[in-house]
């Protein structure tokens, strides 16, 4: 089987989510990559180094510059004439593009796979991860999105794929990119961080989040996260949200501070290697999944922890 993996990149570097998708694709067969964008020659050369990659298709065109699905999906559909599976990381970009490709191919997509059980059989979470479905496709081709935390990352170097330019596709003219507000942070990205410090509603304000959560994250070189309640209350921007409808994370260590542990939040972080919970309510559901639980007032305990760690 020949797979075509969507390469998520920022215009200069391959993003980590791609590496997990490569691992998933390699369980199905030969791994080809698609790098689309404007001025992406450097990304393509880097992508060709990913271990196990045989070929990199590069579609360098201004129309592909902002991942507009209206322009990208027909390009992918055309390339799928010579591939058997389209595999995209389950990022907001992958989730935006893959179903549009699937419908163009008349294929029912399988979303957020957790494992490859057979050539057409996969597991995936349903009901916010409260149940795991094993599903088998009967379509001639596959369209999959891959949950990044469920697969090891392929090595970013060691491969020697060939790079081939693709001339297909262009601007459909029905959509355009206006602008973006992407938070610039001097810390690791949530979805690839080794340590995450998350704060919840118990913090009470944006100022307290800055005062209590940020210094601990700074000291540990950790990414910052939050529960939906903290995001809804306006303590932090929406891209901090960990949970069913936010980001799915699985760091080495996850600190849940002042987070009660609603099922929607647990769905986003319960695969973390070690969970540390600090909450003054000893009955908070978060303690049922925490490896280390501390029942304490976070406003005293967290600064003390920051001082001593």
């Amino acid at each position, binding site marked *: 089987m020949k797979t075509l993996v969507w390469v998520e990149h920022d215009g200069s570097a391959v993003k980590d989510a791609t590496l997990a998708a490569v691992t998933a694709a390699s369980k199905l067969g030969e791994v080809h990559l698609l790098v689309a964008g404007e001025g992406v020659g450097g990304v393509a050369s880097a992508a060709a180094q990913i271990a196990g990659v045989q070929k990199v298709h590069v579609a360098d065109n201004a129309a592909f510059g*902002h991942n507009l*699905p*209206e322009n990208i999906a027909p390009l992918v559909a055309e390339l799928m004439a010579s591939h058997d599976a389209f595999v995209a990381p389950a990022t*907001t970009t992958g*989730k*935006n593009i*893959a*179903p*549009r490709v*699937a*419908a163009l191919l008349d*294929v*029912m*997509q399988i*979303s*957020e796979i957790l494992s490859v059980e057979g050539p057409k*059989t996969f597991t995936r979470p*349903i*009901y*916010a*991860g*409260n*149940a*795991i*479905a*094993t*599903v*088998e*496709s009967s*379509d001639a081709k596959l369209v999959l999105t891959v949950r990044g935390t469920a697969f090891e990352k392929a090595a970013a170097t060691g491969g020697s794929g060939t790079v081939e330019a693709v001339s297909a596709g262009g601007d459909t003219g*029905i*959509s*355009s*990119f*206006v*602008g*973006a*507000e*992407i938070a610039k942070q001097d810390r690791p990205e949530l*979805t690839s961080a080794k340590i995450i410090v998350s704060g919840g509603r118990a913090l009470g304000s944006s100022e307290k989040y800055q005062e209590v959560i940020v210094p601990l994250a700074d*000291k540990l070189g950790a990414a910052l996260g939050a529960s939906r309640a903290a995001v809804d209350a306006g303590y932090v*921007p*929406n*891209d901090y949200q960990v949970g*069913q*409808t936010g980001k799915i994370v699985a760091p*080495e*260590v996850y600190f849940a501070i002042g987070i009660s542990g609603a099922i929607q939040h647990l769905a986003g972080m*319960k695969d973390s290697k070690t969970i540390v919970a600090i909450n003054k309510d000893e009955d908070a559901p978060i303690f049922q*999944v925490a*490896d*280390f*639980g*501390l*029942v*304490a007032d976070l406003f005293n*305990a967290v600064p003390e*922890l920051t001082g*001593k*760690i």
Partner: protein
Amino acid sequence: MKILVPVKRVLDYNVKPRVKADGTGVDLANVKMSMNPFDEIGVEEAIRLKEKGVATEIVAVSVGPAKAQETLRTALAMGADRAILVQTDDEVEPLALAKIFKAIADAEQPGLVILGKQAIDGDNNQTGQMLAALTGWAQGTFASAVNVEGDHVSVTREVDGGLETVKLKLPAIVTTDLRLNEPRYASLPNIMKAKSKPLDTKTPADYGVDTTPRVKTVKVSEPPVRSAGVKVADVDELVAKLKAMGVHS
């Protein structure tokens, strides 16, 4: 401009799903069912566009069992003008749903279709994008702001690193994210009024759509259970545990 709003009847957001003992699915017998929360946000957004004078008519559509009528009545009570139930007891996959909505869009000619970004049962996050592919329309997924400007709509999207804004030619597809709006509650008079609003009943066959599943569910199981660890007495003990794991500044 007409707006089409698909809505799905799902297990209520606050009910903990239980996997059936025989592994065939999640138990939906005698549990509270409600409108998918993301679809509720879609209905609210359509109503706000009507209140602003942008939309003239809101048509709510649901594909599901006879009981999905209740979900449509909720949409009508919130402010939708009429409803279409595409009745079937079969599980309908996103691809087939998108085909049904495409046929309805062909007949109704809406300027916008606003869908939830995903249903909280299957968590597929596909139907809107698939409908966009089938209609050939532009898509603004995971929307946190929607502004119709002449023959275009500008959609601010929640993306991994923050927000991005795209401008789409109408007609277009929008899928909702959580922060787009806070849906209203239907008032009692509006609930009464909704009972007399028109609700048509159709079948997938009326739209020429084959709903035979492409993906077979082999089994459904409980996720691996994570067991609780230990409670530490104080910060010093926590620091010691973390240092033992190599976690320190």
